[in-house]
């Protein structure tokens, strides 16, 4: 670098470097460069479709026909549409009941599998089966199990003389809800159980031993040692579990298509029914967008709630 005096002004000249070179020498610039592919990916495949979906919800687009902006009309219609509200109720009920059951049963299964059992690895492997079977296949199996004429459950109970006629699993609104929830729980338990099992194995044995020496009973050890240490992983697992359950589609589509009389229609299946076979893309998108606040709520709750240290340690705010 050299400094010269020209006509009373100081001019600084430096070796000419290209923009790229300077960027690659800067720590932040390099970081930015490395993030670009990921950012482009996210923009193209997440932000754009999401933005498009939100936009479609404000239009009257049909399949293949560009729509015009109609403001909140889709939402106003949905607000007054009892089928939509029924699907919201169904979705919340489905998510809540199925998630709680999956958590309780999954945790219980994880605790059992964490014991020293014979053939431990074998059991751990087969526990995953419901999760690895393609959803549509297991849904078809449940379709037969819940069939109004050929249900194996009805058949066995009738054979034992406990009931006289087949149980109307998918025909009665409440039984239908219970049936689809049961199928979802069966499918979802392994995910929760295996994740929690992984969490359990990170808890040092020494803590349990120390607690035991201090006279903690089995329940106390679970309550004051296992549970607090497991909370972070519970938060993550349950967040995913809620998201999977809330957006479930295949089970309902195979088992009932939302029937009987929309008693098992979830927001996802209603959105599909109106958008794709019905061609009303705008309205379908609006239903899908209406799911976002619920999903955000679930995520915020688990990330800012369940991960709070005070909560984890059993205290209040």
């Amino acid at each position, binding site marked *: 670098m050299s400094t010269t005096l020209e006509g009373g002004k100081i001019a600084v000249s430096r070796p000419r470097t290209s923009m790229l070179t300077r960027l690659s020498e800067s720590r932040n610039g390099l970081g930015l460069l490395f993030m670009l592919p990921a950012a482009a990916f996210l923009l193209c495949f997440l932000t754009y479709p999401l933005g498009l979906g939100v936009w479609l919800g404000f239009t009257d687009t*049909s*399949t*293949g*026909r*560009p729509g015009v902006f109609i403001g909140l009309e889709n939402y106003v*219609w949905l607000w007054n*549409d*009892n*089928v939509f509200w029924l699907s919201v109720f169904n979705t919340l009920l489905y998510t809540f009941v199925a998630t709680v059951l999956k958590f309780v049963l999954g945790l219980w299964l994880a605790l059992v599998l964490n014991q020293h059992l014979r053939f431990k690895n074998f059991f751990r492997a087969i526990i995953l089966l419901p999760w690895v079977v393609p959803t549509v296949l297991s849904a078809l199996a449940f379709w037969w199990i819940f*069939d*109004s*004429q*050929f249900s194996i459950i009805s058949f066995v109970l009738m054979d034992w003389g406990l009931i006289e*006629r*087949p149980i*109307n*699993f*998918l*025909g*009665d*609104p409440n039984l*239908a809800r219970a049936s689809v929830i049961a199928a979802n729980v069966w499918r979802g338990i392994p995910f929760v159980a295996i994740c929690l099992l992984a969490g359990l194995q990170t808890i040092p044995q020494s803590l349990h031993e120390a607690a035991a020496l201090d006279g903690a009973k089995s329940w106390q050890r679970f309550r004051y040692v296992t549970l607090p240490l497991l909370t972070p992983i519970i938060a993550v697992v349950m967040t995913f579990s809620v998201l999977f359950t809330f957006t479930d589609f295949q089970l309902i589509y195979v088992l*009932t*298509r*939302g*029937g*009987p*009389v*929309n008693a098992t229609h979830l927001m996802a299946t209603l959105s599909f*029914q*109106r958008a*794709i*076979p*019905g*061609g*009303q893309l705008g309205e379908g998108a609006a239903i899908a967008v209406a799911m976002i606040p619920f999903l955000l709520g679930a995520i915020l709750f688990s990330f800012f709630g369940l991960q709070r240290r005070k909560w984890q340690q059993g205290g209040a705010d």
Partner: protein
Amino acid sequence: MTFNRRQIMTGAAGLIGTAALGGITMPRRAFAQNAIPTYTPEAGATLRLLRWVPFVKAEEEAWNANTRAFTEATGVEVRIDQESWEDVRPKAAVAANIGSGPDLVMGWFDDVHQYPDKLVDVTELGTALGEAHGGWYPGLEGYARRDDSFIALPLCAIGNAICYRASQVEAAGFSEFPNDTAGFLELCTALQANGTPAGFPHGKAVGDGNNYAHWLLWSHGGRMVDESGAVAINSPETLAAIEYARALYATFIPGTESWLDINNNRAFLAGQCSLVANGVSLYYAARNDPAMQEIADDIRTTTLPVGPVGESVELHQTSTLAIFNHTPYPEAAKAYLAFMYEADNMNAWIEGASAYCCQPLRAYESNPVWTSSPIHEPYSKASASLRPNGWPGPLGYASAAVMADYVLVDMFAEAVTGQRTPEDAIANAERRINRYYRV
């Protein structure tokens, strides 16, 4: 002037005889197609047809054989893409609107009315075919016409008919099948009392559920909208239809609220149910299974009963053939259609479909498939009893969306299961229909 296959064959035989005797040369085409315009395919033309996945193998073979014959005669290659039947609608709509993809589409119901301005006008061909083959059935023609022009050619109705067990109906005290709704209710009541109930789907069965719901409504004189598209569901006729549906539902096998399209077949073939409505496929499922010959021998078919309107009215499933105006080869496409509707070719196709597809033109009523088995006979009337979806209103987005959203299916299901009073079920349906027909 109308020709059927036999007449053409006889005519052609006579002609060959005359030609042999007198040395006259006359193209066969001129006879069979006297009024049909001829289309010369563009040089180097190729075509792509988007069609639904065939339900009957012989139907596919006949269609492909006709297509091969067309390629041999004209040199135009035709590629046939098959899509599962629920995917044809969105794919065709997208192709129409982005102006690319298949040249022709074999679509469902009111599909073509969702993009009428994206289709090649086939009025000339449609009119000529109608005149040459005894006329189109009005219901099917309604699906293919917009005002005075043909935007597509009607292809077929997938017939729906009652399939019942003759022995069980007889055991219920009916030597003849009742052909009116009142008698039908009595029959179903007797069947239930005998422990061999009937069953119609009240669940989200795309085909069977909609067929049943529309028959209930129309046979009692109800209508969803009027000619102008104003909602007209709230009527005493609809209420009567619902009351009838409730009475009939009380006689059904339990569980029909959850029935999807396949359930009635299953229950019937397992001998749990004595009477259902279905395509002819149900009969062939039994006939082709050696273990079910007893049931197959016992199956009889008949049209759905006539209600207070005094005529046989049904929805059935309908298919049309349309040419997209983005095709670079519209003449080749028209030539293809003209070829497929030639008497011999159409007859071979209808025969291949073995009563699954009902002819669009009256001349083909005499196709031998309809007399080859008494089981087929009711299905031959599908095109005649067919009414377009949303009858008598205009076809388009609204009519398609109302069906896809199961509005009528839900209305009847809500009322028969007691989830709503009939009046509330009608009011709810009215609100939902209004939404789609609002524009």
